[in-house]
């Protein structure tokens, strides 16, 4: 166990920048991203009993971190209130303007799709790991990845035209 703890600590310290970036990509806010990393690291050590093997460490920790980010996003959503008179017709429009950069379009995807794209292409995780992290079976992950890519490509093509 002591060995696992040291390994976990090293892993967390070595990859802290990655965790921050991933958290930031969801929350788009420096303080909140730091908060998310802090909570995730603390929770990881606290709940290290649920880490079954060192090989699972990466997907295990990313799962903790992503769940925290998603929780924070949900909480934020709950808190933001908009007076009816402030709601313009634009609020209901497609939040994916074609001239946005790809990163912004990725961020405009559903959270499930975002997660898959980010983990696969920015964090270089395997689809199997992504399936473990998101607790979604491998085939569904694949389907979502393709549909997300299609959405992004459609937007890309839209940009060219």
């Amino acid at each position, binding site marked *: 166990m*002591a060995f696992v*703890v040291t390994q976990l*600590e090293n892993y*967390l*310290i070595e990859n*802290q*920048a990655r965790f*921050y*970036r991933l958290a*930031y*990509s969801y929350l788009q806010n*420096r303080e909140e991203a*730091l908060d998310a*990393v*802090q*909570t995730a*690291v*603390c*929770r*990881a*050590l*606290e*709940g*290290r*009993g649920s880490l079954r093997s060192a090989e699972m460490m990466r997907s295990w920790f990313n799962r903790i971190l992503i769940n925290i980010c998603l929780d924070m996003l949900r909480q934020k959503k709950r808190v933001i209130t908009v007076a009816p008179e402030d709601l313009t017709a634009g609020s209901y429009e497609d939040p994916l303007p074609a001239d946005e*950069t*790809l*990163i912004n379009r*990725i961020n405009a995807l559903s959270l499930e799709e975002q997660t898959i794209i*980010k983990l696969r*292409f*920015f964090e270089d995780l395997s689809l199997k790991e992504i399936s473990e992290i998101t607790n979604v079976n491998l085939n569904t992950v694949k389907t979502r990845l393709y549909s997300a890519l299609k959405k992004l490509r459609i937007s*890309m093509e839209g940009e060219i035209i």
Partner: protein
Amino acid sequence: MNELKKARAEYEAVPIPEELANIVQTSIQQGKKNYWQKRLKQGFAAAAACLALTFGVLNLSPTAAAIAADIPILSGLFQILTVRDFQKQEDGIDYQVSVPEVKAEGALAQQVNAAIQEQVDAHLARAVQDWQDYREAFFATGGTEEEWADREMNVVVDYEIKSQTDTSVSFVVSLAEGWVAAHEERYYYNLDLAQNQNITLQMLLGDDWVQICNDVIQREIAASVDEQGFSMFFAAEEGGFVSVDENTAFYISADGTPVVTFPKYAIAAGAAGMPEFPIVVD
């Protein structure tokens, strides 16, 4: 795919805040602390359940005895009474307080009662202070009223009679505080009320008491080392056990065996709790 590369570059260009390394370090420490506290709490709950069971069977619990017979532990020379007994919630603190008092003739009982009173008062005052400090820190670091409402602190004062005869009693008063940090202190009293004196290890074990205790404790510590060479006990040069002395705490178990105890962290890692060593003379 080229655009994906660009997106990745953008993703990776997010500047890393300077304080990240520090935050990760402190979170690791906090997480480790929480891990042990959780495990200790579970251990504590299990131990408490065991105690409750034993007491239930033996009907030794002062509270149970008092309820059953409407009189506390009785003996010819003395009584142990619960003088302050309350449960209340105030300002987010959950109090469970049972304070014992020794009712007997003579100066010893008075001294002991005064000492207990002082310990309990200090404990309650400290708990309130700790809670206030925590509250301030909580809001200063951006906590909200809503989040604060979920928090509570437990303050427990309790006692346990370890053993008694017609003329003597051995009991422990425990003072605990539980919130982000858990903290427990125990005070042991071994009283000979016929002679009006504190019972010492020397009285129980003879003039060689230091040697006898040290032999037993050192043997136990040596036996605790596992196959990997790991022991919860600190080495003597790291501030671990060296020798018992007049201030070493102990109680007398039901069969008359003195049991030497050490506070948490005194001679072993926190995970070892409060180590106890029955001093059985063979």
